[in-house]
């Protein structure tokens, strides 16, 4: 593919990436504070995504963002590894550099170019198309939020209260089950967790911040 044939976004993104890289190197040479270096690094990362996006099929865009996130993680890891000295960083550096190279290949493999197709063929990087379409981002966000909420609830009100509420709500809102079925689901999961962990295995389950505070405050 010649430069003229490249999409406009790819050219703009590529130039921005080069500029961000130059600024990053300049600031690094000036030994500025690390938080300042994060700005051109982030701009470069965003520009790289912007540049690569037109080269990737629409259905693979989320996979591209994920691949770029992994690349960013590898670079941050490498940067952190250089903070250590001598033998402490020897093996992690090997791993880090291998990670950067492999994640670069991963990004390239997603592009709808000859190079991308060659990497996909030779290194084996084909995405299963059936798996791409079965999940919806909105549903994923709802499930992630529910999971975050359950961790927060465990922290605040403990396992024994969270368990029946979580099971009830999931069955009711997610599964559209009858209230009776949800009640039984919540009740029996509480009984199961209590019997298994508290009675049989004798673990002391976390009561939660609020009940612990209440016990501390109101009970002698």
């Amino acid at each position: 593919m010649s430069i003229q044939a490249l999409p406009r976004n790819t050219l703009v993104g590529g130039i921005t990436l080069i500029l961000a890289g130059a600024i990053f190197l300049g600031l690094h040479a000036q030994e500025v504070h690390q938080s300042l270096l994060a700005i051109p690094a982030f701009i470069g990362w965003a520009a790289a995504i912007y540049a690569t996006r037109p080269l990737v099929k629409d259905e693979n865009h989320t996979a591209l963002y994920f691949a770029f996130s992994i690349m960013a993680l590898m670079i941050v890891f490498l940067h952190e590894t250089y903070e250590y000295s001598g033998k402490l960083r020897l093996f992690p550096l090997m791993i880090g550099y291998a990670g950067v190279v492999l994640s670069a290949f991963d990004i390239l493999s997603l592009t709808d170019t000859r190079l991308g197709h060659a990497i996909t063929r030779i290194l084996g990087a084909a995405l299963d198309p059936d798996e791409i379409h079965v999940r919806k981002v909105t549903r994923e966000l709802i499930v992630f939020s529910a999971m975050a909420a359950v961790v927060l609830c465990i922290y605040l009100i403990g396992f024994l209260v969270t368990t029946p509420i979580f099971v009830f709500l999931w069955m009711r809102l997610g599964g559209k089950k009858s209230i009776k079925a949800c009640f039984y689901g919540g009740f029996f999961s509480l009984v199961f967790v209590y019997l298994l962990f508290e009675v049989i295995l004798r673990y002391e389950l976390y009561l939660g911040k609020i009940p612990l505070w209440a016990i501390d405050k109101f009970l002698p």
Partner: protein
Amino acid sequence: MIDVLSGLVGSLGTASLHFLNFNSLIFLIAGTSIGLLFGAIPGLGGTTALALLIPLTFGMDKADAIMLMGGSMAATSTGGSVSAILLNTPGIAPNAATTFDGFPLAQQGRAGEAIGAAATSSALGGLIGVFTLILVIPIAKEIVLLFSPPEFFLLAVFGLCAIAVSTGTRLLQALIAAIFGFICAFVGFDLVSGAVRYAYGVEALWDGIKLVPALIGLFAISQMIDLAVKGGAIADEKIDIKLQRMSVGIKAVFKNWSTMLTGSAIGTFIGAVPGVGGTVAGFLSYSTQVQRDTNPDVPYGKGNIKGVIAPESANNAKDGGSLIPTLAFGIPGSAETAVFLGAMVLHGLEPGPRLLFEHEDVVFTLVLTLTIACVIATLIVLALARPMSYLTKVDAHILAPVVTMVALVGAYALQGEIGDVVVAMVFAIIGYLMIRFQYPRITFTIALVLGNITERSFFQTMGISDDSYAIFFTRNVSLILIALIIISLMIPSFRNWMADRSARKEEGSAT
């Protein structure tokens, strides 16, 4: 030779004593039942069962823990055959080949016969795999003595490469997942210098990322997130289940003993190769059977009982085989054995040469557990096939929240730290994203488990050689391992290149 044999008999005797204890037997039966259950319900699988069981074993005696988890590990494939035959949905991937003839048999009203054959061949295949393991243990001891730090380092690299290659079309992503696993393994105290790395001032990370909450998140909760995101019932509720004539199936296994023996041999061999696993064993055994049987009574794919016996004997025999690299070298042969290895480490048992030489009784406890669990699993399936078949219809929306809560409580219960719940959830999200974007979790897990050992071997090697990498090229075993690493990475690329070339040729000739 006599010393070796007397040592083996002594260890076998010590291990047998555990099975006289009533409580231990209860753990074995419980583990087997849980394995069957998780194997039978599509979407759960043996790795989820093992990840959930780890916290329950924390306060247990080592032998009891091994019996609970080993029982579960041995039973999942047997459980998976029930849903493969009745619903055309394999409970776990290794049972996929069973659907080819198992489901047509069920459609012909011969589900009982198919389940009888599957359960019996599973038990016999499992037993053959375990007996092979017993035979290999003395030889493995001799081989292990040839290994020193450079070889252990290269063996870990080879194990990871072999497993990455076995993921088929996602080799690149499997290698990236392995790198990410190593990165996670670096967090915390460095084993050589004692310095803390990558902890960012978080005291909870000083001891590194805790393996058990991480495994629970990666395998148990992430699977539930995936079920929840996909939604819906796991199996079609309209399927009518009829179970009759199981004894005919049992007899068919003995009548077709050569099919069962070939399948078991394939399963054991495939199991011993890190990462190749039960799915390949099942398919390879099935295709071998189809090729061997040139003039079948019933065409394959239309309900030939041998098409059930071949994959079922192979996918159970692989359990014994996959424990050979796990126990002898500490290199897990599959995701299940990787989680099992994590549980062993938790109980102070480091798989590898020390385990073989210092804890031979533990190895034999596992061997006996697998043996007995195979038989118990078969008996349970034969007795309770009908109620088990209804479990395969459980809705994901009932299953997901209950398993998630049990998993989170398990992550907490281990050390009583609420931070472990957060670790489990973080790894659950990571695990889900890996499922979503098709990055194999197995290489990540193995690198996470092996990270410290690999780095320690690397340091020791550098220490021995005064920081010279030449040491890797001056030892025979090292050279063999380097050659194996190169070959393992080259083969799929070469195969893909050849396939691509022939496809282009065909395209060219068509136009």
